[in-house]
């Protein structure tokens, strides 16, 4: 066990040494890997934030029923009765047109324009909570209310959120595909780096093979190198995404003031960050492993260069 640990410590420190011999090259490699990984990770972050937001919005789906502009009080009262009589409706609220106009004035800041209108352009409306929030039930209810007299327009408030959700699922798929492709790219970059290293260390490998080094001993520094390079790339990607989220939050903060609503982009969770770093490390290791096992087999030692 101690010998095993010592062997791995040796491989690890040899890999660190190799990274530090060429600091600029190592940094550039980490940067390339980091930039490549930051694209899918950033997209993922964006999608999961939007998804969380849309789930909040779709949590309480409501139906809005707008009356015709010229509907009379009596006609509205009739609709109120029908709403009360429908068991699939748990609650509803009347928004009279005067109140709607007042709210609109307040929130839009278009006071002057509205004052100049000859009459109130907004209809009376009902905001309705359904007992069953499934899309089918909501659509059934919407279609039913639409048939009622003097109801001009019925709208499912949750519908845009569901469309957003479908869009987000597509974006998630894009992130996954991009992630897979760039993961393959990471493996390829590592493969190539390790290939060059094996070639430049050809003589050393031949010598230590002759002295009795096992394949595992020879491979270990290369594998650690690949894993460390992947880890560094993952860290760069994390940095890029975090910096992006920080900058986005700063401008979102200004937007929040304007819209008087709290808009915020949550950064990667510790769990997500760990997965990112571990994945990058594993992919770097994998690229190094494929490369080193392929290229080591091609190097056989010799005693001196003549054939006999």
């Amino acid at each position: 066990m101690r010998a095993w640990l010592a062997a791995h410590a040796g491989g690890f420190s040899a890999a660190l040494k190799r990274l530090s011999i060429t600091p600029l090259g190592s940094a550039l490699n980490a940067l390339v890997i980091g930039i490549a990984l930051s694209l899918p990770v950033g997209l993922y972050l964006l999608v999961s934030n939007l998804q969380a937001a849309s789930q909040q919005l779709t949590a309480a789906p409501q139906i809005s029923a707008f009356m015709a502009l010229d509907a009379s009080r009596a006609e509205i009262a009739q609709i109120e009765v029908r709403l009360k009589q429908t068991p699939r409706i748990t609650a509803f609220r009347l928004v009279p047109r005067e109140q709607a106009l007042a709210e609109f004035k307040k929130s839009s800041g278009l006071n002057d324009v509205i004052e100049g209108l000859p009459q109130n352009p907004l209809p009376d409306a009902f905001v309705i909570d359904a007992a069953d929030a499934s899309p089918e039930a909501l659509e059934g209810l919407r279609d039913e209310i639409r048939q009622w007299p003097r109801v001009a327009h019925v709208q499912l408030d949750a519908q845009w959120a569901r469309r957003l959700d479908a869009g987000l699922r597509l974006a998630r798929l894009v992130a996954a595909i991009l992630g897979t492709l760039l993961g393959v790219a990471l493996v390829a970059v590592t493969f190539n780096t390790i290939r060059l290293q094996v070639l430049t260390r050809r003589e050393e490998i031949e010598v230590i093979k002759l002295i009795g080094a096992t394949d595992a001993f020879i491979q270990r520094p290369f594998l650690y190198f690949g894993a460390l390079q992947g880890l560094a790339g993952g860290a760069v990607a994390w940095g890029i995404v975090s910096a992006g989220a920080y900058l986005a939050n700063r401008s979102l903060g200004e937007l929040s003031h304007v819209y008087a609503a709290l808009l915020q982009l949550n950064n990667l969770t510790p769990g997500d960050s760990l997965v990112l770093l571990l994945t990058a490390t594993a992919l770097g290791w994998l690229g190094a492993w494929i490369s080193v096992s392929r290229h080591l087999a091609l190097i056989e030692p010799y005693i001196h260069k003549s054939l006999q």
Partner: protein
Amino acid sequence: MISFSHVSKRYPGGHQALQDVSFSIDAGELVFVTGHSGAGKSTLLKLLVAIERPTSGSVIVNGQNVGALNRRAVPFMRRSFGLVFQDHKLLFDRNVFDNVALPLQIAGFPGKDAARRVRAALDKVGLLKFEAAMPITLSGGEQQRLCMARAIVHRPAILLADEPTGNLDTEYALEIGELIRSFNQVGVTAIIATHDQSLLAQLAPRVISLRQGVLEPGAAA
């Protein structure tokens, strides 16, 4: 300790490097393998450390049939040899100490003991004061002695040297000869491939002589 029986080696190109070679070497012997270049000396060494495998016949080292050894077992078999090369094969990216420590690292030898052994080996070849130097700063003779230190640091049973004096002045060659003699005197089996006549005169070893892949009569035992 080592025995070749009816060993032939034909390379893929058709070159017959060794033909029906049989001999054996006891533990503690000092043996020279001589012959002109192309006589098969290097092939013989390559067969010993499993770089090549015989086309026919068997090569036995320490009771193991080297030619039939599993690929995974080869590194461990090689650790019973200490190898000295004509071109030293030192690693120039690390200092003298680390070069000598390499066989111990490979064998997974623990740190403190390893350092002690490395210094003992360096002391033996007279390079202790250079332990922190880079090998490139050493002279040819010193590099060859460094190679010797690396070969014996893990206390192998067999010292295997390929033209150890090939690139050296007479004075340095004498030093190397003395080192070989001293290792042999403490019980290390030494097999030296060379055509250095002065080394031969210096050490007066048993000689296995090859001519065009065939053992010369009188040399076999």
